């Protein structure tokens, strides 16, 4: 696993928003990598910077007020942060595609599905409109939309939520991207539909051999589809490792807190233990570890020293003072 050259490598990414009320440190030192064909999960509470991380990769941070102030995003060896807007446009939708949370609002209501799919294909491929239409039919067929030829002529409101998400996925896949970023793609859907959509992701990944970044706050989704997971807290990675390791041997107190706060179906009804307190205000982060005020294992040093991401075990990175002393740090 370690020898494979990463497809995407995010290094020490800092994306801040300069608002009147202060600087919002939405992403504040995120590092991770994605290997070809792999599925990486990003989990964390609302506001932890998951979407902003994704939008930073695509170069879609609204500016002003947002700005990537530091870091590198290497994709296939090139730093995306050095690319011009025109070059980024050729990468978006072609090399890196994205599926969003709410399929009800993510498609343009006044255009047919056909128009929205065809324009994506035409933006990136040298094909005729006819060929693009043909491709759109194949794509809809591939994501499991019955009667695709007829359905293409429909408007988004004529589809159900699950079907719309299938359309979104088909659209994202239209240029065979090597990386698909899915930002909570199942959150807005019914449970049964959620399972179908996750299945679809797995199937598509196998067929098209693409890497996926799956953003979610649902650990169930993570265990279902992800090879490795990054847990984010307040704009920083808390823990990054293989999914199995995280579930069996999660180290960061925030990770274990998350695990204990998901309901499990067990005969002896364990009491749920939600993480106490609220995420910090990203405009005025506490000195030291930003999780310290909510942490069950907080030590005196946590209030003054900000931990760094350290490799506590092979391919297991944790950002916590509990583990820092003995291990070498990977980022500063």
């Amino acid at each position, binding site marked *: 696993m370690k020898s494979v050259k990463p497809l995407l490598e995010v290094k020490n990414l800092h994306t801040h928003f300069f608002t009147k009320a202060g600087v919002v440190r939405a992403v504040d030192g995120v590092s991770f990598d994605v290997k070809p064909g792999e599925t990486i999960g990003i989990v964390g509470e609302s506001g932890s910077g998951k979407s902003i991380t994704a939008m930073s990769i695509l170069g879609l941070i609204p500016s002003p007020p947002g700005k990537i102030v530091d870091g590198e995003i290497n994709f296939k060896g090139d730093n995306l942060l050095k690319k011009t807007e025109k070059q980024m446009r050729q990468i978006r939708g072609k090399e890196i595609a*994205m599926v969003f949370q709410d399929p009800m609002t*993510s498609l*343009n209501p*006044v*255009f047919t599905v056909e128009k929205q799919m065809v*324009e994506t294909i035409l*933006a990136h491929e040298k094909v005729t409109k006819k060929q693009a239409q043909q491709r759109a039919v194949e794509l809809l067929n591939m994501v499991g939309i019955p009667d695709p030829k007829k359905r293409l002529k429909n408007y988004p409101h004529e589809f159900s939520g699950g079907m719309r998400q299938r359309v979104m996925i088909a659209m994202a896949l239209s240029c065979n991207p090597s990386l698909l970023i899915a930002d909570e793609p199942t959150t807005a859907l019914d449970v049964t539909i959620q399972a179908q959509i996750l299945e679809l992701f797995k199937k598509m990944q196998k067929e098209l051999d693409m890497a996926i970044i799956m953003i979610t706050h649902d650990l169930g989704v993570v265990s279902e589809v992800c090879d490795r997971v990054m847990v984010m807290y307040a704009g920083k990675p808390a823990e990054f490792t293989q999914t199995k390791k995280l579930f069996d041997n999660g180290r960061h107190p925030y990770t274990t807190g998350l695990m204990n706060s998901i309901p499990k179906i067990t005969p002896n009804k364990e009491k749920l233990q939600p993480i106490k307190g609220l995420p910090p205000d990203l405009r005025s982060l506490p000195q030291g570890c930003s999780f310290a005020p909510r942490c069950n294992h907080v030590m005196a040093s946590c209030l003054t020293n900000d931990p760094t991401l350290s490799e506590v075990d092979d391919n297991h990175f944790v950002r916590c003072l509990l583990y820092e002393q003995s291990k070498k740090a990977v980022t500063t």
Partner: protein
Amino acid sequence: MIKYISRRLLMLIPVLIGVSILAFSLIHLVPGDPARSILGEKATQSQLEALQEELGLNDPYYVQYGRFLGDILKGNLGESIQSKESIGVELLHKLPATIELAVFAMIVAIIVGVIAGVIAAVKQYSWFDNMSMTAALFGVSMPIFWLGLMMIWLFSVTFDILPPSGRLSTGVELHTITNFYLLDSILTGNWLAFKDSFSHLLMPGLALATIPMAIIARMTRSSMLEVMRQDYIRTANAKGLKKTLIVFQHALKNASLPVLTVIGLQFGLLLGGAVLTETIFSWPGIGRYVYLAVLGRDYPVVQSTILIIAIIFVLVNLITDILYKYLDPRIKFE
């Protein structure tokens, strides 16, 4: 679709009855005797009574109203007290004048207003945004008669490049077919008349365009700002589409819905006769026609014209609703 339109047209009937009652009674509530205003202060009592009898002004109101409605249903809009001309024939000249002016003003207002609004929204808080929105603020609050007089002073009196009044210079011949002068001059291949009538149209058209232009620009801007925040715009960006395509197709089509409502409303108002503009520039349209009729207490003219204006207003509304359907596929005609 056909069903929807015919139902909407049927719904016109009660509206028009209401308007006709209103038009009829309003004029009778205003103090002043039409017979006296026609004959002047020096008329004798017997002259007055004779004219009142002739005009049917002595009959009870419901008889007068019945006669009014009956005539209209027969397609007879009556006769002007002042000019003794058939109102229908007069409207055949006045209405095209007003429509020509309103359409020209609206085209200018839409083109300038929408483009300014889109640029202002895309470049929010830029100097262009600040400047155009300040201008728009002046635009909506500009007294038209003042603007009109300033234009005449500047372009007609000082520089003498545009004619101050009317639709056509004396001496310019135009064989009229539709009474839309621009159209007629094209139809008859009369280049001179085209240039002349266009130069007459320019000032009143621009004066009339000011307010709708300002309203459309502001509406377009706020609507675009709202739309540009939507998820589907983010999707369009994530697909790698060009910015111009996103702004002018994806965003503008969605943003145009509330703008269309404003356009319909403003257009209806302009078609209803721009009394001030038509008066300042002596434009022989229905606005000026009604204005003069009110001054002269020309009851039949006021009544018939108000009715015509109401019909136009409702028709414009209907067209707006149908256009809505083409812009927004979610709207169903039930």
